[in-house]
Protein backbone atom coordinates (compact mmCIF):
# COMPACT_ATOMS: atom_id res chain seq x y z
CA UNK A 1 0.00 0.00 0.00
CA UNK A 2 1.29 3.38 -1.03
CA UNK A 3 0.88 6.35 1.35
CA UNK A 4 2.97 9.37 0.29
CA UNK A 5 4.23 11.17 3.38
CA UNK A 6 3.56 14.69 2.04
CA UNK A 7 -0.19 14.08 2.00
CA UNK A 8 -2.94 14.18 4.63
CA UNK A 9 -5.59 11.46 4.92
CA UNK A 10 -9.21 11.22 6.06
CA UNK A 11 -11.04 8.42 7.83
CA UNK A 12 -13.21 8.04 4.73
CA UNK A 13 -10.07 7.36 2.63
CA UNK A 14 -9.56 10.63 0.76
CA UNK A 15 -6.14 12.29 0.47
CA UNK A 16 -5.38 16.00 0.48
CA UNK A 17 -2.20 17.74 -0.57
CA UNK A 18 -1.83 20.90 1.55
CA UNK A 19 0.79 22.26 -0.87
CA UNK A 20 -1.21 22.09 -4.11
CA UNK A 21 -4.76 21.78 -2.73
CA UNK A 22 -5.30 18.58 -4.74
CA UNK A 23 -7.56 15.84 -3.39
CA UNK A 24 -8.57 12.33 -4.40
CA UNK A 25 -8.99 8.79 -3.10
CA UNK A 26 -6.22 6.75 -1.53
CA UNK A 27 -4.42 3.68 -2.77
CA UNK A 28 -6.12 1.72 0.02
CA UNK A 29 -9.55 2.93 -1.14
CA UNK A 30 -8.96 1.95 -4.75
CA UNK A 31 -7.68 -1.49 -3.78
CA UNK A 32 -10.74 -2.09 -1.57
CA UNK A 33 -13.10 -0.97 -4.31
CA UNK A 34 -11.27 -3.08 -6.93
CA UNK A 35 -11.79 -2.25 -10.63
CA UNK A 36 -13.35 1.22 -10.82
CA UNK A 37 -15.74 1.52 -13.75
CA UNK A 38 -17.43 4.88 -13.27
CA UNK A 39 -16.55 8.28 -11.84
CA UNK A 40 -18.75 11.34 -11.68
CA UNK A 41 -17.42 14.58 -10.25
CA UNK A 42 -20.20 16.35 -8.37
CA UNK A 43 -18.61 19.80 -8.08
CA UNK A 44 -17.50 22.40 -10.60
CA UNK A 45 -14.75 24.96 -10.79
CA UNK A 46 -15.56 28.04 -8.72
CA UNK A 47 -17.86 26.25 -6.29
CA UNK A 48 -17.28 26.46 -2.56
CA UNK A 49 -17.04 23.19 -0.67
CA UNK A 50 -17.02 22.46 3.02
CA UNK A 51 -15.45 19.46 4.70
CA UNK A 52 -17.65 16.39 4.15
CA UNK A 53 -19.43 17.68 1.01
CA UNK A 54 -19.82 14.93 -1.58
CA UNK A 55 -17.39 15.82 -4.37
CA UNK A 56 -17.57 12.66 -6.46
CA UNK A 57 -19.39 9.41 -6.90
CA UNK A 58 -17.34 6.33 -7.73
CA UNK A 59 -18.51 2.89 -8.80
CA UNK A 60 -16.56 -0.31 -9.04
CA UNK A 61 -17.65 -3.83 -9.97
CA UNK A 62 -18.10 -4.43 -6.23
CA UNK A 63 -19.56 -1.28 -4.78
CA UNK A 64 -20.37 2.37 -5.19
CA UNK A 65 -19.01 5.09 -2.94
CA UNK A 66 -19.36 8.80 -2.34
CA UNK A 67 -16.14 10.75 -2.06
CA UNK A 68 -16.12 13.64 0.39
CA UNK A 69 -14.20 16.91 0.44
CA UNK A 70 -11.25 16.54 2.85
CA UNK A 71 -10.86 20.32 3.07
CA UNK A 72 -12.93 23.49 2.83
CA UNK A 73 -12.37 26.20 0.23
CA UNK A 74 -13.03 27.18 -3.38
CA UNK A 75 -12.71 24.53 -6.10
CA UNK A 76 -10.01 25.89 -8.41
CA UNK A 77 -9.78 22.92 -10.78
CA UNK A 78 -11.52 19.62 -11.50
CA UNK A 79 -9.96 16.66 -13.32
CA UNK A 80 -12.40 16.56 -16.22
CA UNK A 81 -10.64 13.71 -18.00
CA UNK A 82 -11.32 11.32 -15.13
CA UNK A 83 -14.84 10.32 -16.16
CA UNK A 84 -13.56 8.99 -19.49
CA UNK A 85 -10.78 7.05 -17.80
CA UNK A 86 -12.06 5.79 -14.44
CA UNK A 87 -9.30 3.14 -14.39
CA UNK A 88 -6.84 5.99 -13.67
CA UNK A 89 -8.08 5.84 -10.06
CA UNK A 90 -6.78 2.28 -9.86
CA UNK A 91 -3.48 2.86 -11.61
CA UNK A 92 -2.44 6.24 -10.22
CA UNK A 93 -4.71 7.42 -7.38
CA UNK A 94 -2.24 10.05 -6.07
CA UNK A 95 -1.11 11.37 -9.49
CA UNK A 96 -3.24 11.35 -12.64
CA UNK A 97 -6.17 10.25 -10.49
CA UNK A 98 -6.52 13.55 -8.60
CA UNK A 99 -10.14 14.69 -8.49
CA UNK A 100 -10.31 18.36 -7.54
CA UNK A 101 -8.08 21.16 -6.32
CA UNK A 102 -9.30 23.20 -3.38
CA UNK A 103 -7.90 26.74 -3.23
CA UNK A 104 -6.98 28.03 0.20
CA UNK A 105 -8.17 24.68 1.46
CA UNK A 106 -8.26 24.26 5.19
CA UNK A 107 -8.25 20.58 5.97
CA UNK A 108 -10.80 19.00 8.28
CA UNK A 109 -9.93 16.14 10.61
CA UNK A 110 -6.95 14.47 8.90
CA UNK A 111 -4.16 12.00 9.64
CA UNK A 112 -0.57 11.92 8.50
CA UNK A 113 0.71 8.96 6.50
CA UNK A 114 1.92 6.92 9.49
CA UNK A 115 -1.38 7.33 11.31
CA UNK A 116 -3.30 6.48 8.16
CA UNK A 117 -1.28 3.31 7.54
CA UNK A 118 -2.10 2.16 11.06
CA UNK A 119 -5.78 3.05 10.51
CA UNK A 120 -5.86 0.93 7.33
CA UNK A 121 -4.15 -2.04 8.96
CA UNK A 122 -6.92 -2.14 11.53
CA UNK A 123 -9.48 -2.63 8.78
CA UNK A 124 -7.95 -5.52 6.86
CA UNK A 125 -7.35 -8.84 8.48
Amino acid at each position, binding site marked *: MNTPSNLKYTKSDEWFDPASGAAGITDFAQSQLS*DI*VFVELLVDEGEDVTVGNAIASVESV*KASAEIYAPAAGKVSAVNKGLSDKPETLNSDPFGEGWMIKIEGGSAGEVMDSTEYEKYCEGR*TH
Partner: protein
Amino acid sequence: MNKTGGTIVEPTIFELSSPGRLGVTMPASDVPETALPPKHLLRSELPLPELAEVDVVRHYMRLSKFNYSVDDGFYPLGSCTMKYNPKINEDTCRLPGFLYTHPLQPIETVQGNLVLMFELQEWLKEISGFAGITLQPAAGAHGEFTGVLMMHAYHKSRNDSKRTKILIPDAAHGTNPASAGMLGMSVLTIPSDARGNVDLKALTAACDDTVVGMMLTNPNTLGMFDENIEKVVKMVKDCGGIMYADGANLNALLGIVRPGDLGFDIMHFNLHKTFSVPHGGGGPGSGPVGVSQRLLDFLPSPLVGIVEEGDDDIEPLYGFITPKQSIGRMKAFHGHFGGGLVRAYTYISMHGPDGLKDISQYAVLNANYLQARLRGTYKIPYDRICMHEFVAEGSFEGSDIRALDIAKRLMDYNFHPPTNYFPLIVHEALMIEPTETENKDTLDRFAEALIKIAEEAKSQPELLHNAPHITPFGRMDEVKAARELVLCCWLPENYETMK
Protein backbone atom coordinates in the same frame (compact mmCIF):
# COMPACT_ATOMS: atom_id res chain seq x y z
CA MET B 1 -26.28 -27.72 -28.05
CA ASN B 2 -23.26 -26.16 -29.59
CA LYS B 3 -20.82 -26.18 -26.71
CA THR B 4 -17.21 -25.15 -27.07
CA GLY B 5 -15.02 -24.96 -24.00
CA GLY B 6 -17.72 -23.72 -21.70
CA THR B 7 -19.12 -21.33 -24.25
CA ILE B 8 -22.26 -22.10 -26.15
CA VAL B 9 -22.66 -20.07 -29.29
CA GLU B 10 -26.23 -18.95 -29.81
CA PRO B 11 -26.59 -16.23 -32.39
CA THR B 12 -28.83 -13.26 -31.65
CA ILE B 13 -32.28 -13.20 -33.20
CA PHE B 14 -30.95 -10.55 -35.60
CA GLU B 15 -28.13 -12.78 -36.75
CA LEU B 16 -30.63 -15.57 -37.41
CA SER B 17 -32.66 -13.30 -39.65
CA SER B 18 -32.85 -14.01 -43.37
CA PRO B 19 -34.33 -11.39 -45.71
CA GLY B 20 -37.80 -12.34 -46.90
CA ARG B 21 -38.35 -15.19 -44.43
CA LEU B 22 -41.77 -14.93 -42.82
CA GLY B 23 -43.58 -16.14 -39.75
CA VAL B 24 -47.02 -15.61 -41.25
CA THR B 25 -48.54 -15.61 -44.70
CA MET B 26 -51.03 -12.83 -45.25
CA PRO B 27 -54.20 -13.77 -47.16
CA ALA B 28 -55.09 -11.85 -50.29
CA SER B 29 -56.64 -8.49 -49.45
CA ASP B 30 -60.44 -8.49 -49.51
CA VAL B 31 -60.80 -4.76 -48.90
CA PRO B 32 -60.16 -1.91 -51.32
CA GLU B 33 -56.64 -0.48 -51.34
CA THR B 34 -56.16 2.92 -49.74
CA ALA B 35 -53.26 5.32 -49.81
CA LEU B 36 -50.51 4.94 -47.20
CA PRO B 37 -50.18 7.62 -44.53
CA PRO B 38 -47.95 10.58 -45.46
CA LYS B 39 -44.32 9.63 -45.96
CA HIS B 40 -42.99 11.42 -42.89
CA LEU B 41 -45.12 9.17 -40.71
CA LEU B 42 -43.68 5.98 -42.22
CA ARG B 43 -40.42 4.40 -41.25
CA SER B 44 -38.61 1.69 -43.11
CA GLU B 45 -35.31 1.65 -41.27
CA LEU B 46 -36.29 -0.66 -38.40
CA PRO B 47 -34.23 -3.81 -38.96
CA LEU B 48 -36.85 -6.24 -37.63
CA PRO B 49 -35.60 -9.82 -37.76
CA GLU B 50 -37.21 -12.01 -40.42
CA LEU B 51 -37.72 -15.60 -39.26
CA ALA B 52 -40.22 -18.45 -39.42
CA GLU B 53 -42.22 -19.19 -36.28
CA VAL B 54 -40.36 -22.44 -35.58
CA ASP B 55 -36.98 -20.66 -35.72
CA VAL B 56 -38.16 -18.06 -33.20
CA VAL B 57 -39.54 -20.72 -30.84
CA ARG B 58 -36.35 -22.78 -30.98
CA HIS B 59 -34.12 -19.74 -30.46
CA TYR B 60 -35.91 -18.71 -27.28
CA MET B 61 -36.25 -22.30 -26.09
CA ARG B 62 -32.47 -22.68 -26.38
CA LEU B 63 -31.92 -19.41 -24.53
CA SER B 64 -34.32 -20.46 -21.77
CA LYS B 65 -32.23 -23.59 -21.21
CA PHE B 66 -29.23 -21.40 -20.34
CA ASN B 67 -31.23 -20.01 -17.46
CA TYR B 68 -31.10 -21.11 -13.84
CA SER B 69 -34.16 -20.64 -11.65
CA VAL B 70 -35.51 -21.73 -8.30
CA ASP B 71 -37.30 -24.52 -10.20
CA ASP B 72 -33.86 -25.80 -11.34
CA GLY B 73 -32.13 -25.89 -7.99
CA PHE B 74 -31.01 -24.25 -4.77
CA TYR B 75 -30.94 -20.45 -4.93
CA PRO B 76 -29.52 -19.07 -1.65
CA LEU B 77 -29.43 -15.40 -2.65
CA GLY B 78 -29.18 -13.44 0.62
CA SER B 79 -31.90 -10.92 1.51
CA CYS B 80 -33.77 -11.93 -1.64
CA THR B 81 -35.73 -14.84 -0.14
CA MET B 82 -35.73 -16.94 -3.29
CA LYS B 83 -38.09 -19.51 -1.87
CA TYR B 84 -39.82 -22.08 -4.01
CA ASN B 85 -43.10 -20.72 -5.38
CA PRO B 86 -45.88 -23.31 -5.01
CA LYS B 87 -47.54 -24.14 -8.30
CA ILE B 88 -51.04 -23.89 -6.84
CA ASN B 89 -50.49 -20.10 -7.05
CA GLU B 90 -50.39 -20.44 -10.82
CA ASP B 91 -53.82 -22.11 -10.80
CA THR B 92 -55.50 -19.57 -8.56
CA CYS B 93 -54.17 -16.49 -10.32
CA ARG B 94 -55.50 -17.90 -13.60
CA LEU B 95 -59.05 -18.48 -12.34
CA PRO B 96 -61.26 -16.74 -14.91
CA GLY B 97 -62.88 -14.49 -12.28
CA PHE B 98 -59.47 -13.02 -11.45
CA LEU B 99 -57.92 -13.21 -14.89
CA TYR B 100 -60.68 -11.66 -16.98
CA THR B 101 -61.61 -8.62 -14.92
CA HIS B 102 -60.82 -5.02 -15.71
CA PRO B 103 -59.82 -2.52 -13.02
CA LEU B 104 -62.46 -0.07 -14.23
CA GLN B 105 -65.38 -2.51 -13.94
CA PRO B 106 -68.25 -1.37 -11.67
CA ILE B 107 -67.51 -2.59 -8.12
CA GLU B 108 -70.76 -4.58 -8.01
CA THR B 109 -69.33 -6.87 -10.71
CA VAL B 110 -65.95 -7.54 -9.03
CA GLN B 111 -66.94 -8.18 -5.41
CA GLY B 112 -64.85 -11.36 -5.33
CA ASN B 113 -61.67 -9.50 -6.25
CA LEU B 114 -62.40 -6.76 -3.72
CA VAL B 115 -63.07 -9.28 -0.94
CA LEU B 116 -59.71 -10.91 -1.72
CA MET B 117 -57.95 -7.55 -1.49
CA PHE B 118 -59.82 -6.60 1.69
CA GLU B 119 -58.98 -9.90 3.38
CA LEU B 120 -55.35 -9.68 2.28
CA GLN B 121 -55.17 -6.20 3.85
CA GLU B 122 -56.64 -7.64 7.07
CA TRP B 123 -54.24 -10.59 7.09
CA LEU B 124 -51.18 -8.43 6.50
CA LYS B 125 -52.37 -6.21 9.38
CA GLU B 126 -52.60 -9.25 11.64
CA ILE B 127 -49.20 -10.59 10.55
CA SER B 128 -47.41 -7.25 11.03
CA GLY B 129 -49.32 -5.58 13.86
CA PHE B 130 -50.07 -2.46 11.82
CA ALA B 131 -53.34 -0.49 11.72
CA GLY B 132 -53.71 -0.05 7.96
CA ILE B 133 -52.36 -1.44 4.69
CA THR B 134 -52.05 -0.22 1.11
CA LEU B 135 -51.65 -2.87 -1.58
CA GLN B 136 -50.68 -0.41 -4.31
CA PRO B 137 -46.86 -0.29 -4.41
CA ALA B 138 -45.39 -2.29 -7.27
CA ALA B 139 -42.38 -3.63 -5.37
CA GLY B 140 -40.15 -3.09 -2.34
CA ALA B 141 -38.41 0.15 -3.26
CA HIS B 142 -41.75 1.59 -4.43
CA GLY B 143 -43.10 0.69 -0.99
CA GLU B 144 -40.15 2.48 0.61
CA PHE B 145 -40.84 5.58 -1.44
CA THR B 146 -44.51 5.39 -0.41
CA GLY B 147 -43.36 5.20 3.21
CA VAL B 148 -40.99 8.15 2.89
CA LEU B 149 -43.78 10.21 1.29
CA MET B 150 -46.01 9.43 4.27
CA MET B 151 -43.24 10.42 6.73
CA HIS B 152 -42.92 13.71 4.88
CA ALA B 153 -46.70 14.26 4.84
CA TYR B 154 -46.95 13.50 8.56
CA HIS B 155 -44.33 16.08 9.58
CA LYS B 156 -45.76 18.61 7.12
CA SER B 157 -49.24 18.20 8.62
CA ARG B 158 -47.73 19.24 11.97
CA ASN B 159 -45.92 22.22 10.42
CA ASP B 160 -42.67 20.58 11.43
CA SER B 161 -40.45 21.71 8.58
CA LYS B 162 -37.06 21.41 10.32
CA ARG B 163 -36.88 17.67 9.70
CA THR B 164 -34.67 16.82 6.72
CA LYS B 165 -32.47 13.98 7.94
CA ILE B 166 -33.08 10.22 7.59
CA LEU B 167 -31.05 7.81 9.71
CA ILE B 168 -30.01 4.58 7.99
CA PRO B 169 -27.80 1.89 9.53
CA ASP B 170 -24.88 0.65 7.45
CA ALA B 171 -26.43 -2.85 7.59
CA ALA B 172 -29.60 -1.67 5.82
CA HIS B 173 -30.67 -2.46 2.29
CA GLY B 174 -29.13 -0.23 -0.37
CA THR B 175 -32.52 0.91 -1.61
CA ASN B 176 -33.26 2.71 1.70
CA PRO B 177 -30.91 5.67 1.18
CA ALA B 178 -32.00 5.85 -2.46
CA SER B 179 -35.68 6.09 -1.48
CA ALA B 180 -34.95 8.83 1.06
CA GLY B 181 -32.81 10.64 -1.51
CA MET B 182 -35.73 10.65 -3.95
CA LEU B 183 -37.45 13.14 -1.64
CA GLY B 184 -34.32 15.25 -1.22
CA MET B 185 -33.76 14.14 2.36
CA SER B 186 -30.21 13.91 3.57
CA VAL B 187 -29.05 10.48 4.68
CA LEU B 188 -26.99 9.94 7.81
CA THR B 189 -25.38 6.50 8.03
CA ILE B 190 -25.40 4.92 11.48
CA PRO B 191 -22.62 2.35 11.99
CA SER B 192 -23.14 -1.15 13.40
CA ASP B 193 -21.46 -2.24 16.61
CA ALA B 194 -19.28 -5.34 16.99
CA ARG B 195 -22.32 -7.59 17.48
CA GLY B 196 -24.05 -6.34 14.34
CA ASN B 197 -26.56 -4.14 16.21
CA VAL B 198 -27.17 -0.44 15.63
CA ASP B 199 -24.38 1.46 17.44
CA LEU B 200 -26.34 3.17 20.22
CA LYS B 201 -23.68 5.80 20.86
CA ALA B 202 -23.76 6.90 17.22
CA LEU B 203 -27.56 6.85 17.29
CA THR B 204 -27.68 9.02 20.42
CA ALA B 205 -25.46 11.59 18.71
CA ALA B 206 -27.68 11.59 15.61
CA CYS B 207 -31.07 11.94 17.32
CA ASP B 208 -32.27 15.54 17.28
CA ASP B 209 -35.21 17.62 16.06
CA THR B 210 -34.06 17.44 12.42
CA VAL B 211 -34.67 13.69 12.20
CA VAL B 212 -37.46 12.70 9.76
CA GLY B 213 -37.14 9.11 10.88
CA MET B 214 -35.07 5.99 10.70
CA MET B 215 -35.19 3.24 8.08
CA LEU B 216 -34.14 -0.02 9.66
CA THR B 217 -33.93 -3.52 8.27
CA ASN B 218 -34.53 -6.04 11.05
CA PRO B 219 -33.20 -8.67 10.90
CA ASN B 220 -30.51 -6.66 9.12
CA THR B 221 -28.41 -7.69 6.13
CA LEU B 222 -26.02 -9.52 8.46
CA GLY B 223 -28.97 -11.76 9.34
CA MET B 224 -28.90 -10.37 12.88
CA PHE B 225 -31.95 -9.43 14.91
CA ASP B 226 -31.08 -6.16 16.63
CA GLU B 227 -30.78 -6.99 20.32
CA ASN B 228 -31.62 -3.41 21.33
CA ILE B 229 -34.49 -2.92 18.94
CA GLU B 230 -36.94 -1.55 21.51
CA LYS B 231 -34.35 0.96 22.72
CA VAL B 232 -33.59 2.04 19.13
CA VAL B 233 -37.29 2.56 18.37
CA LYS B 234 -37.77 4.57 21.55
CA MET B 235 -34.74 6.81 20.90
CA VAL B 236 -35.90 7.71 17.41
CA LYS B 237 -39.51 8.29 18.46
CA ASP B 238 -38.44 10.36 21.49
CA CYS B 239 -36.74 12.84 19.18
CA GLY B 240 -39.90 13.04 17.06
CA GLY B 241 -38.81 10.68 14.28
CA ILE B 242 -40.79 7.98 12.52
CA MET B 243 -39.60 4.36 12.56
CA TYR B 244 -39.62 2.65 9.17
CA ALA B 245 -39.04 -1.11 8.92
CA ASP B 246 -37.73 -2.57 5.70
CA GLY B 247 -39.77 -5.76 5.52
CA ALA B 248 -37.47 -7.51 3.06
CA ASN B 249 -36.36 -9.87 5.82
CA LEU B 250 -39.83 -10.56 7.19
CA ASN B 251 -39.39 -14.24 6.35
CA ALA B 252 -37.60 -14.60 9.69
CA LEU B 253 -40.44 -13.17 11.80
CA LEU B 254 -43.83 -14.58 10.71
CA GLY B 255 -45.94 -15.50 13.71
CA ILE B 256 -43.03 -14.70 16.05
CA VAL B 257 -42.49 -10.93 16.14
CA ARG B 258 -44.78 -8.20 14.82
CA PRO B 259 -42.97 -5.00 13.78
CA GLY B 260 -46.07 -2.97 14.74
CA ASP B 261 -45.81 -4.31 18.31
CA LEU B 262 -42.15 -3.26 18.44
CA GLY B 263 -43.25 0.33 17.85
CA PHE B 264 -42.50 0.68 14.13
CA ASP B 265 -44.74 3.14 12.28
CA ILE B 266 -44.29 1.91 8.70
CA MET B 267 -43.18 -1.26 6.98
CA HIS B 268 -43.22 -2.48 3.41
CA PHE B 269 -43.82 -6.14 2.66
CA ASN B 270 -42.17 -7.90 -0.24
CA LEU B 271 -44.89 -10.30 -1.35
CA HIS B 272 -42.37 -11.54 -3.94
CA LYS B 273 -40.03 -12.61 -1.14
CA THR B 274 -41.99 -13.62 1.94
CA PHE B 275 -45.27 -14.67 0.34
CA SER B 276 -44.13 -16.73 -2.65
CA VAL B 277 -44.88 -14.35 -5.49
CA PRO B 278 -42.25 -15.11 -8.16
CA HIS B 279 -39.14 -13.05 -7.57
CA GLY B 280 -36.77 -11.89 -10.24
CA GLY B 281 -36.84 -11.60 -13.98
CA GLY B 282 -37.92 -8.01 -13.60
CA GLY B 283 -41.24 -8.55 -11.90
CA PRO B 284 -44.02 -8.25 -11.20
CA GLY B 285 -43.13 -7.64 -7.58
CA SER B 286 -45.58 -6.43 -4.99
CA GLY B 287 -44.74 -4.14 -2.08
CA PRO B 288 -47.74 -3.41 0.18
CA VAL B 289 -47.09 -0.97 3.02
CA GLY B 290 -48.45 -1.12 6.56
CA VAL B 291 -48.73 1.87 8.91
CA SER B 292 -49.44 2.52 12.57
CA GLN B 293 -52.47 4.40 13.88
CA ARG B 294 -50.79 7.84 13.67
CA LEU B 295 -50.14 7.49 9.93
CA LEU B 296 -53.44 5.87 8.97
CA ASP B 297 -54.87 9.03 7.40
CA PHE B 298 -51.89 9.44 5.08
CA LEU B 299 -52.14 6.06 3.30
CA PRO B 300 -52.33 6.15 -0.50
CA SER B 301 -55.75 6.24 -2.08
CA PRO B 302 -57.80 4.24 -2.75
CA LEU B 303 -57.87 1.48 -0.16
CA VAL B 304 -60.31 -1.38 -0.30
CA GLY B 305 -63.03 -1.11 2.33
CA ILE B 306 -66.69 -1.80 3.08
CA VAL B 307 -68.74 0.96 1.49
CA GLU B 308 -72.17 -0.40 2.49
CA GLU B 309 -72.58 -2.44 5.64
CA GLY B 310 -74.38 -5.75 5.26
CA ASP B 311 -76.77 -7.52 7.57
CA ASP B 312 -78.05 -11.05 8.12
CA ASP B 313 -79.56 -11.20 4.64
CA ILE B 314 -77.32 -8.98 2.55
CA GLU B 315 -73.57 -9.27 2.08
CA PRO B 316 -71.65 -6.02 2.67
CA LEU B 317 -70.62 -4.09 -0.44
CA TYR B 318 -66.88 -3.75 -0.87
CA GLY B 319 -65.46 -0.76 -2.72
CA PHE B 320 -62.81 1.94 -2.57
CA ILE B 321 -62.21 4.46 0.21
CA THR B 322 -59.88 7.46 0.47
CA PRO B 323 -57.99 8.24 3.69
CA LYS B 324 -58.51 11.82 4.95
CA GLN B 325 -55.02 13.21 4.30
CA SER B 326 -53.98 10.67 1.67
CA ILE B 327 -50.70 11.17 -0.16
CA GLY B 328 -52.62 10.16 -3.28
CA ARG B 329 -52.27 7.40 -5.79
CA MET B 330 -48.98 5.50 -6.03
CA LYS B 331 -49.85 3.38 -9.03
CA ALA B 332 -52.37 3.21 -11.82
CA PHE B 333 -55.27 1.01 -10.69
CA HIS B 334 -54.81 -1.25 -7.66
CA GLY B 335 -51.34 -2.80 -7.48
CA HIS B 336 -50.25 -6.06 -9.05
CA PHE B 337 -53.51 -7.86 -8.52
CA GLY B 338 -53.25 -11.19 -10.32
CA GLY B 339 -49.48 -11.38 -10.43
CA GLY B 340 -48.93 -10.51 -6.78
CA LEU B 341 -51.98 -10.24 -4.57
CA VAL B 342 -53.79 -13.42 -5.64
CA ARG B 343 -50.65 -15.52 -5.28
CA ALA B 344 -49.85 -14.08 -1.83
CA TYR B 345 -53.47 -14.60 -0.73
CA THR B 346 -53.27 -18.21 -1.87
CA TYR B 347 -50.02 -18.75 0.00
CA ILE B 348 -51.24 -17.21 3.26
CA SER B 349 -54.58 -19.03 3.21
CA MET B 350 -52.85 -22.32 2.39
CA HIS B 351 -50.52 -22.03 5.39
CA GLY B 352 -52.72 -20.43 8.04
CA PRO B 353 -51.28 -18.91 11.24
CA ASP B 354 -49.43 -22.04 12.40
CA GLY B 355 -48.06 -22.74 8.95
CA LEU B 356 -46.72 -19.19 8.65
CA LYS B 357 -44.90 -19.57 11.95
CA ASP B 358 -43.45 -22.87 10.69
CA ILE B 359 -42.11 -21.05 7.62
CA SER B 360 -40.06 -18.65 9.70
CA GLN B 361 -38.88 -21.29 12.15
CA TYR B 362 -37.65 -23.54 9.34
CA ALA B 363 -36.07 -20.58 7.51
CA VAL B 364 -34.12 -19.67 10.67
CA LEU B 365 -33.25 -23.29 11.42
CA ASN B 366 -31.94 -23.87 7.88
CA ALA B 367 -29.75 -20.77 8.00
CA ASN B 368 -28.32 -21.72 11.37
CA TYR B 369 -27.68 -25.27 10.21
CA LEU B 370 -25.71 -24.02 7.20
CA GLN B 371 -23.84 -21.49 9.34
CA ALA B 372 -22.88 -24.25 11.78
CA ARG B 373 -21.70 -26.54 8.97
CA LEU B 374 -19.53 -23.81 7.41
CA ARG B 375 -18.12 -22.39 10.63
CA GLY B 376 -14.43 -23.27 10.79
CA THR B 377 -14.11 -23.46 7.00
CA TYR B 378 -15.27 -19.92 6.34
CA LYS B 379 -14.84 -16.95 8.64
CA ILE B 380 -18.19 -15.73 10.03
CA PRO B 381 -17.40 -12.17 11.17
CA TYR B 382 -20.63 -11.64 13.15
CA ASP B 383 -20.79 -15.09 14.64
CA ARG B 384 -23.90 -15.57 16.74
CA ILE B 385 -27.27 -17.27 16.29
CA CYS B 386 -28.50 -15.84 13.01
CA MET B 387 -32.00 -15.35 11.71
CA HIS B 388 -32.97 -16.44 8.18
CA GLU B 389 -29.55 -15.62 6.64
CA PHE B 390 -25.91 -15.13 7.60
CA VAL B 391 -22.80 -13.59 6.10
CA ALA B 392 -19.50 -15.42 5.61
CA GLU B 393 -16.20 -14.08 4.28
CA GLY B 394 -15.20 -15.41 0.88
CA SER B 395 -11.46 -15.20 1.37
CA PHE B 396 -8.73 -17.22 3.05
CA GLU B 397 -5.54 -16.24 4.88
CA GLY B 398 -2.59 -16.15 2.48
CA SER B 399 -4.72 -16.79 -0.63
CA ASP B 400 -5.77 -14.47 -3.46
CA ILE B 401 -9.14 -16.22 -3.81
CA ARG B 402 -12.02 -13.76 -3.56
CA ALA B 403 -15.75 -14.08 -2.91
CA LEU B 404 -16.36 -13.72 -6.64
CA ASP B 405 -14.20 -16.79 -7.41
CA ILE B 406 -16.11 -18.86 -4.86
CA ALA B 407 -19.45 -17.67 -6.20
CA LYS B 408 -18.46 -18.55 -9.78
CA ARG B 409 -17.14 -21.96 -8.76
CA LEU B 410 -20.44 -22.80 -7.02
CA MET B 411 -22.09 -22.68 -10.44
CA ASP B 412 -19.97 -25.68 -11.44
CA TYR B 413 -21.65 -27.54 -8.58
CA ASN B 414 -25.08 -26.58 -9.96
CA PHE B 415 -25.91 -24.07 -7.27
CA HIS B 416 -26.90 -20.47 -7.74
CA PRO B 417 -24.26 -18.37 -5.93
CA PRO B 418 -25.25 -16.46 -2.81
CA THR B 419 -25.33 -12.66 -2.80
CA ASN B 420 -21.75 -11.40 -2.84
CA TYR B 421 -20.07 -8.13 -1.91
CA PHE B 422 -23.08 -7.17 0.18
CA PRO B 423 -23.39 -6.03 2.91
CA LEU B 424 -20.45 -3.69 2.35
CA ILE B 425 -19.41 -3.86 6.00
CA VAL B 426 -18.18 -7.44 5.56
CA HIS B 427 -14.94 -7.99 3.68
CA GLU B 428 -15.55 -10.21 0.58
CA ALA B 429 -19.09 -10.91 1.76
CA LEU B 430 -21.04 -14.05 0.88
CA MET B 431 -24.58 -13.59 2.11
CA ILE B 432 -26.42 -16.89 2.33
CA GLU B 433 -30.18 -17.35 2.72
CA PRO B 434 -31.37 -20.92 2.26
CA THR B 435 -35.11 -20.30 2.96
CA GLU B 436 -37.47 -22.80 4.55
CA THR B 437 -38.23 -24.75 1.39
CA GLU B 438 -34.91 -26.65 1.27
CA ASN B 439 -34.51 -30.07 2.83
CA LYS B 440 -31.50 -31.27 4.78
CA ASP B 441 -30.06 -33.17 1.79
CA THR B 442 -29.93 -30.00 -0.28
CA LEU B 443 -28.38 -28.02 2.57
CA ASP B 444 -25.78 -30.75 3.07
CA ARG B 445 -24.89 -30.87 -0.62
CA PHE B 446 -24.48 -27.10 -0.64
CA ALA B 447 -22.33 -27.07 2.51
CA GLU B 448 -20.18 -29.88 1.12
CA ALA B 449 -19.72 -27.98 -2.16
CA LEU B 450 -18.56 -24.90 -0.26
CA ILE B 451 -16.20 -26.97 1.89
CA LYS B 452 -14.80 -28.67 -1.23
CA ILE B 453 -14.33 -25.25 -2.86
CA ALA B 454 -12.39 -24.06 0.19
CA GLU B 455 -10.04 -27.05 -0.32
CA GLU B 456 -9.76 -26.29 -4.04
CA ALA B 457 -8.86 -22.71 -3.13
CA LYS B 458 -5.71 -24.11 -1.55
CA SER B 459 -4.89 -27.01 -3.86
CA GLN B 460 -6.01 -25.74 -7.29
CA PRO B 461 -6.74 -22.00 -7.07
CA GLU B 462 -6.76 -21.64 -10.88
CA LEU B 463 -9.87 -23.83 -10.91
CA LEU B 464 -11.63 -21.05 -8.99
CA HIS B 465 -10.05 -18.16 -10.85
CA ASN B 466 -11.34 -19.51 -14.17
CA ALA B 467 -14.72 -20.76 -12.96
CA PRO B 468 -17.39 -21.45 -14.02
CA HIS B 469 -16.42 -24.29 -16.33
CA ILE B 470 -19.66 -26.17 -17.02
CA THR B 471 -22.06 -23.31 -17.67
CA PRO B 472 -23.12 -22.21 -21.17
CA PHE B 473 -20.85 -19.18 -20.79
CA GLY B 474 -17.59 -19.02 -18.87
CA ARG B 475 -16.26 -16.16 -16.71
CA MET B 476 -17.64 -12.84 -17.88
CA ASP B 477 -15.40 -9.79 -18.06
CA GLU B 478 -17.39 -7.67 -15.60
CA VAL B 479 -14.97 -4.76 -15.76
CA LYS B 480 -15.16 -4.48 -19.53
CA ALA B 481 -18.94 -4.85 -19.42
CA ALA B 482 -19.23 -1.95 -16.97
CA ARG B 483 -16.60 0.31 -18.53
CA GLU B 484 -17.61 -0.18 -22.15
CA LEU B 485 -21.34 -0.20 -21.80
CA VAL B 486 -23.24 -1.03 -25.00
CA LEU B 487 -26.94 -0.51 -24.41
CA CYS B 488 -28.07 -0.60 -28.01
CA CYS B 489 -27.45 -3.33 -30.52
CA TRP B 490 -28.31 -1.16 -33.48
CA LEU B 491 -28.15 2.56 -34.26
CA PRO B 492 -30.26 4.22 -36.94
CA GLU B 493 -28.24 5.55 -39.88
CA ASN B 494 -29.07 9.15 -39.00
CA TYR B 495 -28.22 8.68 -35.28
CA GLU B 496 -25.59 11.45 -35.31
CA THR B 497 -28.04 14.02 -36.69
CA MET B 498 -30.80 12.88 -34.28
CA LYS B 499 -28.71 13.73 -31.21
